[in-house]
């Protein structure tokens, strides 16, 4: 039973971290251009300067 005292807060904390990360990503505009992000990795950076 003592394990629960550690595991439950830990589980909730992990969940909250995920939720926080999602909120941050959304406010940061990471979901604004879903298709573009996939294509940008194909762009050569050499002369992007």
């Amino acid at each position, binding site marked *: 039973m003592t394990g629960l005292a550690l595991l439950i807060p830990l589980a909730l904390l992990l969940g909250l971290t995920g*939720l926080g990360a999602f909120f941050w990503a959304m406010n940061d505009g990471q979901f604004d*251009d879903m298709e573009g992000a996939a294509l940008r990795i194909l762009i050569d950076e050499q002369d992007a300067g």
Partner: protein
Amino acid sequence: MTAHPVTEAAIPALHSVLAVPGIRCAACIAKVERGLAGFPGVIAARVNFSSRQVAIDHLPELDLPALKQAIAEIGFDAEPIPNSVVEGRDSETRSLLRATAVAGFAAMNIMLLSVSVWSGATGGTRDLFHLLSAMIAVPAVLYSGRPFFRSAWSALRHGRTNMDVPISIGVTLVTALSLYETLTHGPHAYFDGAVMLLFFLLVGRLLDSFMRDRARLGVASLLRQTAPGARILGEDGRTSWLPADRLQPGMTMLVPAGERLAADGIVEGGPGALDLSLLTGESAPQRVRSGEVVHAGTLNLDGPLQVRINAAGRDTVIADIARMMEQAAQSKSFYVRIADRAARLYAPAVHSLAILSFAGWMIAGAGWHQALMVAAAVLIITCPCALGLAVPAAQIVAAGTLMRAGVLVKDGSALERLAEVDRALFDKTGTLTLGHPEPVDLEPLDEEARSVALALARGSCHPLSQALHRALEAQGAVPAEVNRIEEAPGVGLRGIYRGCIVTLGRPDRAACDTDLLAASLVIPERPPILLRFKDPIRPGARLAIRALEQMGIEPSIVSGDRAQAVAPVAGELGLTAQTGMSPADKLTAIGRLSDAGQKVLMVGDGLNDGPALAAAHASIAPASASDVGQNAADAVFLGNSLLPVVKAIRISRRTMRIVRQNFAIAIAYNALAIPLALAGLVTPLVAALAMSGSSIIVVANALRLRSAGQ
């Protein structure tokens, strides 16, 4: 941080968004962004590939035409998007997404705790888990339930009831009771049920909102801003570009060929020819001379026109039409969506059932606590998951199918209204016809003439030249070497080909005095070749009309054009037509049909159709329509063919069948579950299983619409 020069931050930058429909690959993104980054005055440029737009931070010196020009130099067509469209685009989706994320997080964690309780946790452990659930559930319900509480409150305040009323009452009551249960060490807490219900319903709302956003993005990237401004001739003879809302009476604007007028005015330098089809539906170009009155929204066909503005902004004829549209659109806002109509019957039934079960258990001698628990279980079980999730799920799948078929539907309510139409009115110019001239036939041209014509035509933005250019290029003609091409406004093009002068221009008066839709190609030592143009009927128009008739929808034409111009089209398609109609006449025609109990579908494109599009029960515009037409219509179809109109109605009817099936499933499920709930046999475990089960069934049923487009 120090890398940024201090001066850069001090300059107030402007933010503009342009639609660039031509972006198709990673290379295009790089090309546009790098090309703009190197352009003087541009601070930053970022392409949004999903919406085919580029957002540019730039110095105030750069105006929209300059940005458009800059992107054109990189090799892409761009159209500025008005700020009103850009701002506040998806704030609703964002807040719904946040609420859904919170509800999802809470539902998962509470479920984790609930499973342990269901597996047999007792005593202190159960109390602890209930307490933890409460600590997660109460804030989550308060946060994620806001969209429902707000909507329910506003409905109640106006003396109405909608779907959100039973949802709000149910969720609040269940949460409050579970809280009481937790504090009194009771065995049953329904936190998981309450939060899961919110989660499923929010997913439904979110789908609805996604659908609207996607269609709005699609339409925004199509928006052809008709004359967002004009080049103004200053006192000192210099010209400057002003956006439409800053034009003032008394200014003189220069309108090049192929551009639309941004304000009403009087012609100063002419003569010229104007295409009025957007404003009146008339297809034949009209000659204008100095001193004549011209209106905003008309297209200048010939050489540059000088127009002294006498009305701008809210005083133009266009603004009158816009006001008429606003009024017409109000009738549409009275439409009640199917889910809300169902809720009007459903909500009172659910509420009386819950009250009756409470009363019944009290009379049977149970304590008020047990009776309340039963009533709460009834509310949770009957909570309209199917109504909240089934309708948007079916509609978003249908909207996706329609999008693949080339139809952008603006929202779910549009799909519902499209399914109900039983009468169709078509505009002629630009709707039944393509709305731009095409060469009647290119037979008189041999190989050499074609290449000369292409070489001449491709340098001009006159509509006839562009039509010829498109047609010849489609046939694979190769431009000949023609040098020193000059364009004389209102006369035509000339150039040097193999040492001789060749011309493409207006035919001799003798050849055709009245017909402006013709051009003549003169190559030395050959007879001149007369090329005729006409506005052709859309491909698939005849098939589409027949299909509509088979579906029990009676089509006819309402046109602003003259009877002589409408007759050939009406004859070819076998339709009756009303001609010479002003925008107000079209509005009256729709009003008369609606009063007779018919649900009218309006298909139109022009500004003159705007009020009719807004007033009709449902409306569709082609992608080639004016932005007013596209904004007013419920759906926009892409491409030249008229067949997507039929597809839109067919798929929307199928969607409504699926929605009704979903309602039937929901009712059947309730018929099974309610007796259990009334008998007090529904534990939190049963409620959770029933809720997820019914949601999965209705979503699976909705997914059958994926193949409806074939």
